[in-house]
């Protein structure tokens, strides 16, 4: 099995430690897959045995109850509270610290919105890191175990140069395509998100961070066969991790490549686990389900900014209530040059790009 790097632009660069799952998985040889397969299934067998040895243990009982619980949206408030207690107990035990699972509902009169100044973004990717830490994303070293919800796309600026002036004209009876045909000059969405610059921003690059756009007409919601993923009343599109069957239909439907699949049990070191969680947000996920950005419900439902907004060193990221004309986002929408990504698909993102 051979592996090739991504687009030529990135070929020369070392894959960063945060290599994206795909390439990494490809690098494994078949034997590796099988070997680690054998080992892990052994260990999971042992895990099962350990559980059976102490049938009274809370975790096993909790998992059993979790398995038969209802879709979160259909739970009564009591059932939600029960589920919450169950999870708090289990996570606290598993991660050796006091974990809270928030079940705060959407607040009336709030519609969350996000705006990003692409002029300002310097491509430092601090938002990516902050997001991983805040939202308990998987950070294993093993291929396929690392999950990042935000991508900062690095795009070539492109150029028009004198020496290419006559390229693209037909020679002899060749096919006519026009002149200078193949230079990207600020082409949208042919970027890379794994880059290792000496310093940011780089001279010849533009950056476009993307993550879940929390579409108003989300194709991912429409295709879900079990209504696991849905739009909350205050805007964000969320996933009930306990109800997702892992059919991955939503991943195919999302035009922004915003969803990630837990190919294996997420790797979340105890000490790195963020204990302040929300049921629909950053609580630890399990194997075989889909996850994505939810605008830090555990923070934003309590009036705080999402982690990426807080951490952005240049203040490119803005967040607020779209229904409140005095909020920062509303003012940006009213006064700046704003656009949405892939507007032709009618997904109506609540994530707006702007520039001054």
């Amino acid at each position, binding site marked *: *099995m051979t592996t*090739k790097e*991504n*687009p*030529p632009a990135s070929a020369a660069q070392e894959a960063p430690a945060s290599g*994206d*799952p*795909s*390439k990494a*998985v*490809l690098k*494994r040889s*078949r034997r590796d*897959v*099988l070997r680690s*397969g054998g080992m*892990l*299934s052994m260990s999971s067998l042992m895990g099962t045995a350990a559980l059976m040895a102490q049938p009274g243990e809370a975790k096993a009982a909790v998992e059993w109850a979790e*398995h038969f619980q209802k*879709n979160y949206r*259909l739970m009564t408030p009591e059932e939600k509270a029960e589920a919450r207690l169950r999870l708090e107990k289990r996570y606290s035990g598993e991660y050796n610290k006091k974990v809270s699972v928030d079940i705060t509902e959407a607040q009336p009169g709030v519609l969350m919105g996000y705006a990003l100044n692409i002029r300002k973004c310097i491509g430092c990717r601090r938002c990516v890191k902050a997001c991983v830490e805040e939202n308990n994303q998987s950070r294993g070293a093993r291929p*396929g175990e690392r999950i990042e919800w935000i*991508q900062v*796309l690095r795009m070539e600026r492109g150029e028009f140069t004198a020496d290419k002036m006559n390229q693209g004209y037909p020679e002899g009876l060749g096919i006519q395509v026009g002149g200078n045909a193949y230079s990207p000059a600020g082409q949208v*969405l*042919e970027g*890379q*998100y794994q880059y290792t610059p000496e310093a940011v921003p780089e001279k010849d690059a533009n950056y476009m961070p993307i993550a879940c756009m929390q579409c108003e007409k989300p*194709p991912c919601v*429409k*295709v*879900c*066969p*079990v*209504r696991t993923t849905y739009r909350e009343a205050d805007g964000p599109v969320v996933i009930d991790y306990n*109800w*997702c*069957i*892992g*059919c*991955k*239909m939503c*991943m*195919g*439907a*999302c*035009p*922004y*490549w915003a969803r*990630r*699949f*837990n*190919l*294996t*049990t997420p790797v979340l070191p105890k000490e790195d686990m963020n204990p302040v969680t929300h049921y629909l947000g950053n609580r630890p996920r399990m*194997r*075989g*389900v*889909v996850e994505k950005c939810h605008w830090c419900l555990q923070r934003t439902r309590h009036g705080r900014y999402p982690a990426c907004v807080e951490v952005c060193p240049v203040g490119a990221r803005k967040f607020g209530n779209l229904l409140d004309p005095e909020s920062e986002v509303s003012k940006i929408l009213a006064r700046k040059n704003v656009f949405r990504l892939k507007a032709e*698909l009618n997904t109506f993102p609540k994530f707006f790009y702007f520039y001054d």
Partner: protein
Amino acid sequence: MLTRFVFDYARYVLKGGTKFYAWMGTLALLIVGMLYVFYLQNTEGLIVTGMTSQIHDGLYLANLVFLVGVAAGAVTIVFPAYVYHHEGMHKVTVLGEMLAISAVIMVMVFVFAHMGRPDRLWHMVPPWGIYSFSSMLGWDVLVLNGYLILNFVVGFWYLYSKYTGKPVNAKIFMPLVYISIVWALSIHTVTAFLIAVNPARPMWFHSMMPIRFITTAFAAGPALIIIAFLIIRNNTKMWIEDSAIKLLTTIVIWCLGLAIFLTLSEIVIELYARTEHANSLYYLMFGLHGLTALVPWFWSSVVLMVGAFALFMTPKFRNDMKLLPIPCAMAFVGIWIEKGMGLIVPGFIPSPIGEVTEYYPTFVEWMMTLGIWAFGFFILTILLKGAIGILLGEVRFGGAAAANPAAAVH
């Protein structure tokens, strides 16, 4: 009487020569392999497959889509038999229904294999779960199950009536047959919709998908049936008439020709304008950014399909029952590649943000795929064998007693 039916049926199926047991044994081995990798997948997660966040559906979905076509293809027997009253075909319709049953079962197993949490499958089934009317996958599962039930009922009712010698109640039976004919179209159409309704994947997002699916289905399905018929003809006492095989051949030729034409139209339209949306197709045909993993697949499928078409066009191949399996196998394999490595996988490349990554199925995936196919053939063999026994009259109510005086004593 029903228990006797099941009993006689099973007893007939279990009897067989070394060839039969060798065949079933091999299949059983592959099934065991499948169970092992399925266990791996469900203890470790889909990480043991070649799937990634970019290309999150691979061989499994590809086979699923292809097999839905094979299942739908059975209608190429049922339709001429019941609507045109084709004599040769009428005798063997039930064999087509058996093929449909096994194909749908394989599809279900592939659905299972491809899910991250098969233990939560019940979430789709009301009243415990939720059924979503907006989801194409929900509809797909619904029509597939419907098709399975229809074929099961129609097929076994017919066999049972043969077995007992009492004719079926045509007033109920015939409407069921007609429903199953229309239903066959629906399963592949809905599967096409499942894929085509995603504007996020420009390669799939066009309305030609359903008709292209139907044409390839009606080429691949009957191609397999022809091969199965020829095997049956040569290995059992069951004789399948030339006229039936000829009609199937004609259907394969026409549908294969249409499929090639539709592919050609798509290529011209996409590549002439060569917008960003043509990238997937371009990647499939020539590679993109130096990555070319699918290129050999695409061209091999083209060679197989066009080659099969050319061979079918030569009377020597078309009419010679010895040579006929060659173009049939070529068409079958060509379409299998076209649906899998030529449609599902490139749909994900480049990803919606323009990333080009390649997909290589792992051993686990190949093993699983092979195992599910083996499972399908296992079921198919059982179904066909029993059905043939009944059609031949070897399994008949009271037949065992009649044939075996020792048993008749008590």
